[in-house]
């Protein structure tokens, strides 16, 4: 019996779900976007919306902590008590939030933030420049993500409203740090009192407060009745309409779906594409689609001798036909992508996307030809190309995510057509990352996401490239330049140049941008900002 339990413990290690997969996809806000809403168009008029009540959200990932400076994962479940300093509008443009204005010095090394005067902490104390300073300093000292904030030299509270952040060298991605809640100002009194344990009783300026946590199960927040500085794209700038919001962490898909069908959940996040039709048919239910702020790709371990020959990588890229992947494996809930950055990340360039599409459109013949040029042909008639008796056979690693597993099977059969064998190996995400970091991998399916083109630095710069192990001095130079170029237009040009190289000398095969699907029921006012991942819950009213 003991043996049975132990073996079931080890299988869990392997059967890690979607959850963790989701966890690892971004370091910043998980960031889907509303690209369309479909309704089942109820014939009857909508019931009148009311104020008050408890909004129930089924979220897939339970946060480890409610302290954004201690977490590597921030999303709507744990950032409700907080407000960001800047934000982005629904078109992706940088706009003020807690800071009414901001300025970057000529040399790009000094950021001046002027905070709003009317903002109060949930304790009633006013927001001060000093508290902004303290919070950013704490982030730079204790956060596991502190490197994302860049080379901060010192921070100064110039007067009651003005904060100056000094950098050792210019760091453009800092704007995106201000957009997230990693740098949200904390209530200074509470911080002093709780210190390291701030996450147990967070107090800040956000729309919801006083989280009541049932670990492993749920978190419930009460609305902040004095709130009147909502996100700039929110309809309701005042206190939330609902009294409370509960996030329930339901892991089993069947359970989540049944709860939603029963009517106990208002917002069901991460609906598996296979359930969409069923849920759409429910009266009062709506399906909201949103493009993710990252992409899924087929990665190469570029340190492997075989992948140093660019023709092999290009041949594999040409073997991939994205249409069946999107239509069959993902029921149409994705968009094919060829270039290094998806449309939801600044720095996306249509020119690059078209160039990549021209180069790597589905072309089996060209793919075979490239392999032949590299010396690989099928000499023994087993369907697999070989050279000097060595077949083109790779292990294809992927995490335990049902959608990715369907994708892997299609990729496997497509590679077979040009004579490349892929052996599918599914691992839990921790194992997969371990193999990737140590370079014990060949081909793999993974994803990335961040709200800044600096993601390319984090993925491709020689010292940071821990997935694809890519190294190209010219790319390194451009990506480093992208970090220090403060002029937005010039900066995007730098990334365009870098992407051009990444298309010609590909470290990976970009596959698709997934659409994350959310189902809502008996509510109105749901909206999601594609560029920040924020849902202004204060806008939502319960209709039933």
């Amino acid at each position, binding site marked *: 019996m*003991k043996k049975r339990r132990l073996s079931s413990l080890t299988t869990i290690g392997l059967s890690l779900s979607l959850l963790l997969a989701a966890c690892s996809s971004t370091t910043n806000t998980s960031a889907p976007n509303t690209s369309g809403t479909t309704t089942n168009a109820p014939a009857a008029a909508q019931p009148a919306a009311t104020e008050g009540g408890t909004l129930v959200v089924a979220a897939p990932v339970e946060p480890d902590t409610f302290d954004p400076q201690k977490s590597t994962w921030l999303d709507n479940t744990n950032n409700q008590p907080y407000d960001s300093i800047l934000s982005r509008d629904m078109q992706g443009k940088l706009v003020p939030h807690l800071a009414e204005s901001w300025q970057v010095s000529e040399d790009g090394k000094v950021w001046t933030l002027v905070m709003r005067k009317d903002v109060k902490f949930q304790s009633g104390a006013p927001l001060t420049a000093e508290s902004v300073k303290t919070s950013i300093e704490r982030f730079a000292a204790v956060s596991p993500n502190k490197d994302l904030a860049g080379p901060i030299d010192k921070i100064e509270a110039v007067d009651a409203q003005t904060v100056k952040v000094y950098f050792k060298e210019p760091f453009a991605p800092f704007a995106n740090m201000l957009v997230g809640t990693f740098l949200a100002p904390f209530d200074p009194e509470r911080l002093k009192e709780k210190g390291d344990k701030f996450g147990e009783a967070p107090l800040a300026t956000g729309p919801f407060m006083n989280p009541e946590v049932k670990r492993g199960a749920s978190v419930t927040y009460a609305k902040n009745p004095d709130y009147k500085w909502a996100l700039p794209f929110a309809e309701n700038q005042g206190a939330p309409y609902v009294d409370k919001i509960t996030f329930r962490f339901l892991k*089993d898909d*069947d359970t989540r779906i049944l709860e939603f069908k029963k009517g106990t959940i208002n917002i069901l996040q991460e609906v598996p594409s296979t359930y969409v039709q069923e849920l759409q048919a429910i009266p009062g239910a709506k399906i909201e689609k949103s493009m993710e702020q990252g992409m899924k790709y087929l990665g190469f371990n570029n340190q492997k001798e075989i992948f140093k020959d660019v023709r092999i990588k290009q041949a594999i890229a040409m073997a991939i036909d994205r249409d069946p992947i999107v239509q069959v494996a993902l029921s149409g809930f994705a968009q094919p992508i060829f270039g290094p950055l998806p449309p939801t990340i600044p720095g996306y360039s249509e020119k690059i996307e078209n160039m990549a599409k021209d180069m790597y459109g589905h072309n089996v013949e060209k793919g075979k030809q490239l392999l032949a040029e590299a010396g690989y042909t099928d000499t023994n008639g087993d369907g697999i190309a070989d050279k000097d008796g060595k077949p083109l056979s790779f292990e294809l690693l992927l995490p335990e995510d049902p959608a990715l597993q369907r994708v892997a099977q299609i990729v496997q059969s497509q590679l077979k057509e040009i004579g490349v064998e892929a052996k599918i190996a599914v691992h839990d995400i921790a194992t997969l990352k371990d193999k990737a970091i140590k370079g014990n991998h060949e081909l793999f399916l993974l994803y990335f996401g961040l709200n800044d083109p600096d993601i390319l630095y984090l993925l491709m710069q020689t010292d940071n490239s821990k997935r694809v192990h890519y190294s190209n001095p010219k790319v390194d130079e451009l990506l480093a330049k992208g970090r220090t170029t403060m002029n937005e237009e010039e900066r995007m040009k730098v990334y365009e140049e870098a992407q051009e190289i990444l298309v010609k000398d590909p470290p990976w095969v970009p596959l698709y941008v997934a659409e994350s699907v959310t189902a809502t029921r008996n509510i109105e006012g749901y909206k999601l900002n594609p560029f920040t991942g924020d849902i202004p819950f204060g806008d939502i009213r319960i209709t039933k």
Partner: protein
Amino acid sequence: MQRYLIRRLLSLLGTLLGVTILIFLLVHLIPGDPVQYLLGEHPTDEAIAALNAQLGLDRPWYVQYASFVGKLLQGDLGTSYITGYTVWQEIVERFPITFQLALYSVILATVIGIVVGVISAVKQNTWVDRLVVFFSLIGISAPGFWIALFLIWIFAYKLPIFPISGYDGFFSLILPSITLAMGEAGLIARMTRSSMLDVIKQDYMRTAQAKGAPHLWMILRHGLQNAVIPVITLIGLEFGALLAGAIVTETVFSLQGLGSLAIESIGKRDLPTIQGLVFFVAFLFAITNLIVDLLYSWFDPRIKYE
């Protein structure tokens, strides 16, 4: 009895020492490490090295093992890397649900299993017997998640009597307890049946019958009491196993017991929690077994420990 107890306790200590070695090996042999989880997607090499040093993961394995056992001896199960709570706090928070679930399902399974098992033994080779054998096989072999979803579908969705998921007192544990009890009841029924069949053939049963003892009395007093020992062993083992947390059932019903804690900590490679939790569970299992063994002599006075 006393000497036996001392002997058993000493061997328990040996077992637990073995368990610590196994746990430690297991946890350190699985690929992936907590540092990668803690630092997010894009850590620098310096950050990795610094955190490894901070968590003591850069020390040689035998030093880490010694520190693990040393802390255990002081009753310290360690502190979670992820949540910052002590593993003991994590367990105390989650154990009540797991314990209740184990208790209710074992009680339910015992009652059903023994009653059904006895009936089927007494009515051997009749249609009642075949029905019992058939259903207990289904109970044993049906996967837990399937039973769980089936029960949820009927009793929480179609007939909204119970909540679908989540913990909200005794009421919310009824469906999960039935789910777990199904399999256990099947096992207990089969064990009771075969054990009863052995006993029924014994001479003393014929003697009791000849003496004119009432049928039911004879079955219970002379039959069941003698047949119950292997059944108790089984119940004890099953109860011990259930205390480890029912991973599938807890996940489907979204209950925050030890099973879900195990899943989470393994996924995040939270070494102290995995180690502390497995040790705690092994300890409970060993203690439950000891208690069961001691119960034998109470049920059957012929068994004496020297």
